[in-house]
């Protein structure tokens, strides 16, 4: 691996992420169909553009790498698509008015949604009554939904049974634990989670199942509950206790509430000398996590786009397209944390890891 060139590329990508829109380098690829279009530009009348597919993109917090990957996919495969992008500005309740306004005029062939709230806002749960007013006749392709089965977007990953499919960004739990194992072998792993989040509870079960196969033990620590809601009370003590019980790793699942207190968990683990493995990139970059295995948002967007292309170009019904996650993930190592803990990655990992320094 050529270190300098990789870093150069990595920096380029970081910059691209900050800008948050199509960077110059990519306009080049977009240009292959001769029509670079800034995101969110008003679409021409559908009648005049009969040769291009119309895709409505609903974003949650503006353009991210996911949308970039989604649009690039069509450009790279020479599929003419006319995009209309609408942002709900982190407010899922805006979905209904946007749809009411856009659907009659733009008449999209497909709707792209970002994240769970938007996907539910557009397509609703699969067991919603037909009268509930969700989109049932236009294919919906989602990206970045962590647990589509748990939130009732689909009864199973194999098929939604309806007009929905998409890309999941969660890395399978056993894959994560294997990565953890190859960074540093363990016999006891601690985990902190919100007991009210069914997704987190499911992950704890998966962890236990995997740990059983390698003869390891999972020390599961639920967060303190006040009524129905978790709180961060005593989380620093939890971390220290796990360390005292012999945990060699602290695993932080993709837990919605836990994500809000990363700034407390990370430093506590560092102070206790406990290496942390995070399921989200955010934790590694901002929360003093040591290492994590994450999906590249760009690739998740591409995966979603590949499913959209199947629907649009090959006319495969969405219910026949399984909901999938990526084939390959990114391993991110926070070298500053590694230095402070004195827990360095095995050298072979540097062949494929992205290192934050």
């Amino acid at each position, binding site marked *: 691996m050529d270190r300098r060139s990789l870093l150069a590329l990595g920096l380029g990508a970081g910059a691209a992420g900050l800008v948050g829109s199509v960077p110059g380098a990519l306009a080049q690829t977009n240009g292959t169909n001769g029509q670079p279009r800034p995101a969110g530009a008003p679409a021409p009348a559908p009648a005049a553009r009969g040769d291009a597919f119309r895709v409505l993109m609903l974003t949650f917090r503006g353009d991210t790498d996911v949308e970039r990957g989604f649009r690039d996919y069509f450009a790279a495969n020479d599929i003419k698509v006319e995009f209309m992008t609408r942002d709900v500005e982190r407010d899922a309740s805006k979905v209904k008015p946007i749809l009411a306004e856009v659907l009659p005029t733009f008449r999209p062939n497909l709707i792209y949604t970002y994240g769970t709230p938007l996907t539910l806002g557009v397509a609703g749960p699969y067991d919603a009554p037909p009268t509930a007013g969700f989109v049932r006749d236009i294919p919906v392709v989602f990206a970045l939904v962590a647990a589509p089965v748990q939130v009732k977007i689909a009864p199973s990953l194999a098929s939604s049974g309806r007009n929905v499919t998409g890309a999941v960004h969660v890395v399978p739990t056993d894959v994560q634990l294997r990565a953890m194992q190859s960074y540093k072998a363990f016999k006891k792993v601690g985990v902190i989670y919100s007991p009210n989040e069914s997704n987190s509870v499911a992950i704890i079960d998966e962890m236990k199942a995997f740990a059983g196969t390698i003869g390891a033990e999972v020390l599961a620590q639920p967060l303190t509950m006040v009524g129905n809601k978790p709180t961060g009370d005593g989380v620093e003590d939890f971390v220290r206790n796990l360390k005292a019980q012999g945990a060699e790793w602290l695993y932080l699942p993709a837990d919605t509430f836990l994500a809000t207190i990363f700034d407390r968990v990370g430093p506590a683990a560092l102070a206790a000398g406990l290496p942390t493995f995070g399921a989200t990139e955010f934790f590694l970059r901002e929360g003093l996590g040591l290492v994590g295995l994450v999906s590249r948002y760009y690739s998740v967007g591409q995966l979603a786009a590949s499913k959209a292309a199947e629907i649009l170009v090959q006319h495969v019904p969405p219910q026949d397209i399984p909901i999938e996650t990526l084939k390959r993930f990114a391993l991110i190592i926070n*070298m500053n944390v590694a230095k402070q803990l004195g827990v360095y990655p095995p050298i072979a990992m540097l062949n494929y890891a992205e290192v934050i320094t």
Partner: protein
Amino acid sequence: MIGLRGGISIAIVIILCSALAVIGWGAEQAAQRTIAPEIVAKANSVGRAAADLVQRAAAVGVPFDRLVGVNRYFDDLRAANIEFTQISLNAAGGKELARSGEASPGGDAPRVFVPVEDADGHRLGDVMIVVDPSVVSQQVGAVLVDVAFIGIVALLVALELVALVVGTRGLESLVAVERRLKALKRGVLSRQEGGAGAAGDLILPIDRHVETLAERHLALRAEAERRGDGEAIARLDEIEVRTGLGRVQAAESEAAIAVRPALFLFMLAEELTRPFLPRAAQALGVPAGFGPDLSASLPIVAFMAVVALCQVPFASLSERLGRRPGFLAGAALAAAGYVVSAISPHYDVFLAARVATAVGYALVFVSAQGHVVDLSSGAARSAALAVFVRAIMVASLCGPPIGGVIADRLGPGVAFGTSAGLALVALLVARLTLPAAERHRSVANVGLADLKAAARAPGLMSLLLGCAFPAKFLFAALCFLLVPLELQREGFSSAAIGRFQMIYPVLMVIGVPFFAALADRFSARAGFVVAGGLVSGIGAMAVLLHPSVALIVVALVALGWGQAMSIASQSALVADTATSMGAGRAAGVLGLFRLVERSGNAAGPASAGFLLSTLGFASATGFLGAVAVAGALLFALSGRRIFVHHSRRPSSAAASEGSSA
């Protein structure tokens, strides 16, 4: 005495063995000079890759003396590059920080040092790789094993060529002379059939002597009979039995085995395609709805299935056509099939061409077999069939490596072309050697009813389904599909795959006579059949332990050994059953045996293709092995008692085609 032909065959074996040993030695020298330096250069590349990684670790802030997992990384590198005995990382001060493997101290092992530097270009230490010269020569040794295989192939081809030359009619005079000399040597004074014109001068004196004696003998006997001298008659009859005097010794069944060279060449044509056929099929593009594994296995399966299905109908067809026209037509059809396979750009056309070849192949096989059966009888038939089987086995031994090399060097198209050429040469040889007009003896056609009757023979079905079918099933699946595809995935060339495919026939050629003799001596045929099934099945199941090239070899060796153990006994048991069924039913039993074997051949790759795509290589192989084991156990439980009482008949591979398709 050893005749000229026998003597020269032995001489050629000895001469070629020594000549090929010299070539092998030369190959080793050449390899040492040319390949060994390349291995050192490769060590340099690997060293640079390792040093780069260490540098990257240093650059991201891992202290040089606290690198983690270096030993493990070096272990992996060494596992991927077996010619490195040691890889180590040394600090600038000389302290060893990590090491994998251990080179023997001293010696002249080539060493490669690649410096590790920090971002500012200061040398932190270096990566050292020791290339073990003995491993280099081991690699060369592996090449030499290949060369040895090639030697065997060259030798066998030579012997087949010798047989081809010897079989030509131009040598009749020599044959006539040698037969007479041989008879004298054994003290046999019978008259010899066939005194060819050219040798007349030479054999006339001998024949005259024998003739005179015989005439005198006849006259004396007639005289004694007239006299009613029982004592004299007995004496004269005794001397007649002892010396063969007055009898006519029929020419050996050379006519029956005249088909051997043509058959050998034809079989060689098909065997050439083995190593590259799956790959060639895949290269034509995977048809819609097919996985790559299915598209590789379908041409093989179609071929085998057609050959299996044609067995019974072609038996009577070739009889109606005549054996010679049958052979010629089949060879021509197969040659056409090879030509189309060579040039076809489409998968469908390719498949159709393979089916055409299969039809031709079945016709040739059935005709050749019919020819041997027509022109021989009794023990001579068994011997003639054994010669026939040997030709097929030698072809299956020599074909794959040669075909592999041709495909590697010149492409599969040319290799198919070579097959077409060989099929045509076989056609010409058959035209020259097979008798044109045959006496059409009425041999009972084998029909469905005969097969049904045969199926009711006691114990036969458990032998066929428990052992004969699984044996062929496992063999065809492993040798024709699973092993070639897996080795291809491992990056082996067609030529190398061809040599792996030789393991089986080599063991068969060596093992069959050996085990046949053992089984006869201990009169434990059923036992050998069961043991053979278990050995081959367990060998295949061993692949499950740790899928690797070594275990693939183990599976192939077990397969060859196991089949060698069981096949001769299987055939003898079937032949016994055929005999016990009475003359009218024997053909049905043999036909059923062949049909079941052929079905195993066809079903093997078909199931393997399916299993490969669902279970993967190791599980598919293990599963097939388990089938063989289960079959052997089934036979052991159900069939054993029935066969114990059967009459003894020398085991031979005659009734089975051994390794052929």
